[in-house]
């Protein structure tokens, strides 16, 4: 699977007109053909396509993602340097949206078609329609520009000399707005999935049985209905991880967070094919890892999964 990703991305970037050498020469104000030729030789850009694809694969096997032309550093170093910021952003956004979304989903799904349900469903529909970059801008207008409660950009105060807990607090303060911008939208999605899952579970036989047993309503809601609706939500989490990674590109560029997504944008503007390639490959690996974790969680949540293995 990863193999297909690598080949397709390679072919796509290969079809680009003009390479990094052109972009570099343009940025320094032009150069003569011999300079361009020697630069291409240095970066191996003069070899045939297949030879370079083979070269890429063989270096990939040793975790070497190539050399970034725009930054003049190894691609892997750049990505590893930026990745923690993005993982922090994505992790907190996921936790927040999953927690809040499922909690509100339970509130809405406890009594389908009630007033509370209608208000929450409508609100989540509108929230889900908001583009995350615009939500980010509006949040920063209100909380950073008008109220001056929170900083507008960056991941921490530059050269503040803070360490330990003070530094963590500083980073947390910088992350509030971007995390909310990303999380609120996914919260709406999780709320909707949770709610519809619960509405469906209400019609099932075992819920009817629980009611006829005379169990209290809150017990039915939490133990029977919500527990069943949680499974599709976990599946959704895995499916959305790729979309969230894409969404972080825009959020990071608005809040000037030096993360993975911003790196992608810099790679695009610098016409840095090796860097862009590395970013796509690493993001695919990341999504696969997330889905692997989700599968394991899923097996823990639902005893039916994996029950086909001989375990008696």
């Amino acid at each position: 699977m990863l193999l297909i990703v690598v080949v397709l991305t390679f072919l796509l970037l290969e079809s680009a007109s003009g390479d990094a050498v052109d972009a570099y020469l343009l940025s320094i104000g032009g150069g003569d053909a011999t300079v361009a030729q020697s630069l291409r030789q240095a970066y191996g850009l003069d070899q045939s396509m297949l030879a370079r694809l083979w070269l890429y694969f063989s270096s990939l096997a040793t975790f070497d993602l190539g050399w970034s032309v725009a930054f003049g550093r190894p691609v892997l170093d750049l990505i590893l340097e930026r990745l923690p910021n993005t993982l922090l952003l994505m992790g907190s956004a996921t936790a927040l949206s999953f927690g809040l979304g499922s909690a509100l989903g339970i509130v809405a799904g406890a009594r389908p078609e009630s007033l509370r349900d209608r208000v929450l469903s409508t609100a989540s529909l509108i929230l889900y329609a908001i583009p995350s970059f615009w939500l980010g801008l509006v949040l920063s207008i209100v909380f950073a520009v008008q109220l001056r409660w929170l900083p507008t950009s960056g991941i921490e105060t530059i050269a503040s000399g803070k360490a330990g807990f003070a530094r963590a607090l500083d980073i947390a303060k910088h992350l509030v707005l971007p995390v909310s911008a990303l999380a609120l939208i996914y919260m709406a999605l999780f709320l909707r999935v949770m709610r519809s899952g619960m509405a469906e579970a209400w019609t099932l036989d075992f819920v009817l049985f629980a009611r006829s047993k005379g169990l209290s309503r809150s017990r039915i809601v939490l133990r029977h209905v919500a527990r069943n609706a949680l499974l599709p939500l976990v599946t959704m989490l895995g499916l959305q991880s790729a979309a969230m990674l894409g969404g972080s590109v825009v959020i990071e560029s608005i809040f000037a967070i030096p993360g993975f997504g911003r790196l992608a944008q810099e790679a695009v503007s610098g016409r840095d094919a090796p860097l862009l390639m590395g970013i796509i490959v690493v993001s695919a690996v990341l999504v696969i890892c997330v889905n692997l974790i989700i599968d394991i969680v899923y097996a823990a949540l639902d005893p039916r999964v994996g029950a086909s293995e001989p375990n008696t």
Partner: protein
Amino acid sequence: MRLLRDLVRTPEGAIGFGILAALVLIALLAPALSPGDPLRIAGRALLPPFIDPAFPLGTDRLGRDVLAGIIHGTRTSLAVGLAAALAAIAIGLCLGLTAGFAGGLIDEGLMRVVDAFQIVPSFLLALAFVSVIGASVPVVVMAIALGAWADPARLTRAQVLSIRERDYVASARVIGMHPAEIAFREILPNALPPVLALSAIIVAAAILTEAALSFLGLGDPNVVTWGSMIAEGRNILRSSPSLSIFPGVALVVTVVGVYLFSEGLTKALAGRRLEP
């Protein structure tokens, strides 16, 4: 036509249909509603909104009419969203039908390609695609479609797999229908409804992706889009936030309209399945 009547009968469908119809009208009548190039300089720069009746929503940093931009932006957003979704669904339907119908090695191979497209963040893919080929409306459409076809392909395949075992397909095979005829006349029409319901979501996602791309400066520079208007206003966010807010509201209204329409459509389709 009957589907449309069922659709309008649900409250979501009626509101969604209303919003979309109004937007389509605005898009079609854009040249009449605000004549001339929306990118031309029309008046004093940075006029605040709700002051000058000639520019109800004010002007931007270069003195361009914000209302004209929003009206003409409707065209771009709807056109790109619809075209990208149409392309994605067409590709998805064809490949899903092929994979589900052919089975075996072809199915296996096609599905691995679908997997590959699903694990790469589609926004990153669109970003790479546009940056490689250069920003213009058709390229943006293709870039968005490239990231969106995998879901309908998977859904179509699942539908085909369940439908091809039904009795009427078996009887079609018995009376000697050509496989292609079975695929297109027996299986495709029955596999279509769930894919149709998915398509509204794809349109909404395509509109949002287009806005995000042009927000990052990767849209067609020669047409006005809501995303590029928001990006333009972002530079002077502190002094005149309304420049970014109005196009954003237009985006939200559009996408809400599409979602409501899709909810109505799902309900209408479900109701129709129960009726007969």
